[in-house]
């Protein structure tokens, strides 16, 4: 797309200061809404052709995110959370994945941009923290080497300056004695420290967008608390936008401003944290909230599981993908089985994709499930 190219050219000529880029109006294409959110995904689709059929891992996802805010993406394994985050970073190989739609990051469109261009943005303006720090860090290189490499790819810095920067970053994420630990290898770090080192690497170029894909799933609960707090502190300091991908509703309740609930590659509910936890509208969200044991409530005699199993992404159930597991799917006759529900605004800023009548939905939520206020 011409727009992406033009931005790239302008960037090459005009230096790399991300803040000036953000405020730089004239580089926006004519007709582009200048009030566009910092990050905006529109009708994002990521499909993988396989021998068994087309896997529609992400199928029409839209969301926005501002700087300084956190978006939580929640869903079961196979719902498309991680595929979405890799898609934003442009980490899907074009030979294997069909990516369509639009992703705007501070005025740059990422999907139509060239590989070269995305590579320059990746690390510099957007970075990722992976779930398993042991496999995301290279075992043959020291922690310092890996941070220095990431820093020098994007910044003109001498090795010495880059090393000083790496030590400063390690200190910032709370690694004791960073000037000696910088020469350690990943295996010499504990799980929590590795995750800290990965955060240091992700933040070494001061990215505007930080994607954390299950950053604490591999960690113990006390370490998890440390890492979540670290992410929040650094987010406030750098004014970054954060996408927090997790299956743990406790983690999103602590971290997120907005929540996107995904099921079978689509958003089933999207709203503020209050919407999702206090006024959930979608039966799948109800299921998630009711099925987990909670420490903040009295112990329930029995959990309410969601029946059945997550759907296949090759043979998605017809109509609403959740209907085979939905306790209320029968109420609309054949509608849930035949028509795919579109994401519609149930209340300002609160979107839900469900065929149930809004009044009926509210009645079920309050009377039967005692969910929300």
């Amino acid at each position, binding site marked *: 797309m011409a727009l992406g190219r033009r931005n790239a050219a302008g960037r090459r000529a005009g230096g790399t200061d991300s803040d000036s880029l953000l405020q730089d109006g004239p580089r926006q294409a004519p007709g582009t809404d200048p009030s566009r959110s910092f990050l905006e995904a529109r009708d994002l689709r990521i499909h993988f052709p396989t021998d068994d059929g087309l896997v529609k891992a992400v199928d029409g996802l839209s969301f926005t995110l501002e700087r300084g805010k956190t978006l939580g993406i929640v869903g*079961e394994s196979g719902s498309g959370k991680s595929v979405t985050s890799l898609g934003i970073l442009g980490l899907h190989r074009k030979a294997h994945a069909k990516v369509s739609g639009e992703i705007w990051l501070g005025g740059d469109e990422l999907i139509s941009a060239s590989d070269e261009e995305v590579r320059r943005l990746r690390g510099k303006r957007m970075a990722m923290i992976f779930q398993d720090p042991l496999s995301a860090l290279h075992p043959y290189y020291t922690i310092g080497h890996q941070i220095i490499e990431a820093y020098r790819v994007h910044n003109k810095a001498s090795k010495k300056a880059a090393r000083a920067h790496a030590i400063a970053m390690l200190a910032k994420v709370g690694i004791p004695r960073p000037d000696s630990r910088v020469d350690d290898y990943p295996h010499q770090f504990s799980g929590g420290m590795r995750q800290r080192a990965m955060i240091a690497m992700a933040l070494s170029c001061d990215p505007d967008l930080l994607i954390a894909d299950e950053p604490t799933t591999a960690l113990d609960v006390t370490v998890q608390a440390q890492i979540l707090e670290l992410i929040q502190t650094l987010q406030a300091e750098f004014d970054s936008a954060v996408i927090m991908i997790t299956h*743990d509703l406790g983690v999103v309740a602590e971290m997120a401003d907005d929540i996107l609930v995904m099921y079978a590659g689509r958003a089933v509910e999207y709203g503020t944290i209050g919407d999702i936890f206090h006024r959930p509208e979608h039966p799948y969200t109800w299921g998630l909230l009711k099925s987990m044991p909670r*420490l903040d409530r009295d*112990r*329930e005699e029995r959990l309410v599981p969601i029946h059945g199993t*997550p759907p296949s992404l090759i043979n998605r159930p017809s109509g609403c993908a959740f209907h085979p597991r939905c306790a209320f799917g029968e109420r609309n006759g054949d509608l849930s089985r035949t028509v795919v529900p579109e994401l519609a605004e149930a209340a300002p800023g609160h979107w839900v994709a469900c065929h149930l009548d809004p009044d009926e939905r509210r009645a079920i939520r309050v009377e039967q499930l005692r969910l929300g206020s």
Partner: protein
Amino acid sequence: MTATTPADVTGEEHPGGEGETLLSVSGLRKHFPVVRGLRRKTVAAVKAVDGLDFSVRAGETLGLVGESGCGKTTTGRLLVRLDEPTAGKIVFQGRDITHTKGAALRRMRRDVQMVFQDPFSSLNPRHTVGSIVGAPYRLQNIKTEVGIKRTVQDLLELVGLNPEHYNRYPHEFSGGQRQRIGIARSLALRPKLIIADEPVSALDVSIQAQIINLMEDLQNELGLTYVVIAHDLSVVRHISDRVAVMYLGKIVELADRTDLYERPMHPYTVALLSAVPLADPDQRGKRKRIQLAGDLPSPLDPPPACPFHTRCWKAQEVCTVEEPPLAELSPGHRVACHFPENAPHANPEDPRQRDPSVPSEDGVVPKELRDAEAHQAASQAPAPPAPAAGQTEPGPPPTR
């Protein structure tokens, strides 16, 4: 049988009196040797389990919680006798099974079975479901009344699987279904005790609830006794009758579920509970969170005396020299700590014991954790002495 010695009473009392003791463990230790050099000289030992005393009553569920590396999985393996204990004693149904071997061990396994964490690696991918679930009958040379196939199909039905899937292979099933296969296999010989090592942690949230409900139904139906090993504190609270908290190979607190979650006494338990993220955005920022400094010390070289003193904000001189015993401070509530929280009247001679700002013992957990003053008061306590091995920085825990 080699081990037909009569029951050795371990001095464990049974508060409440419900159910007889099915399993009792005393002084259980497992040290893994670290060998170096050509002569394979033992230079050190990983003290994975370092002196456990507890008992399990028939029909109850005992939860074992702790962070990774605390020895909970090793404990589970010792109970099923997959690992040989270094020291201590395991008594099951009045028989000492600590060093049982051969045929006697095989006979004991009819009564003690294990459910493993990872349903992907604990089922042989080359065997059909029928062969996996029927294996215990073949191994134990047991004939069933209606034939093994029919029995296995009944078992599959019992755990909520389609009996017609008898000839399918594990890869044809989802994670939750595979965990059901693992449970069916463990039930095949109608055991009395099931050790479940992280039975739901590999599963999605919506599937976790299915498996937890299944385990509870089976317990009621078949009168099973469970030892559930897990790191998820909310799952453990839901499933357990009593809970033991482990830290560096030792039990630091053991109590009834309600007691432990509402009146945690050991500082480590308090810190663990405060670290669990709650699924309620209204709680955000209102809870005081105790952050433990640093990482878990290495079990190769655990801190002397109280293993928690390097990270504890209440630690004092005595904690570095004298190991606190696992003492019963209130009925059925045992704690290994010199300065327990929420303690009713233990150690009255210690002036710090009754801190007026510590919440009363009938405060429930979330309320108690929200209480800012409790932990501020705790963190204003004199700074603990410098840790022995330079593991962590001393000082009050950062709270927010």
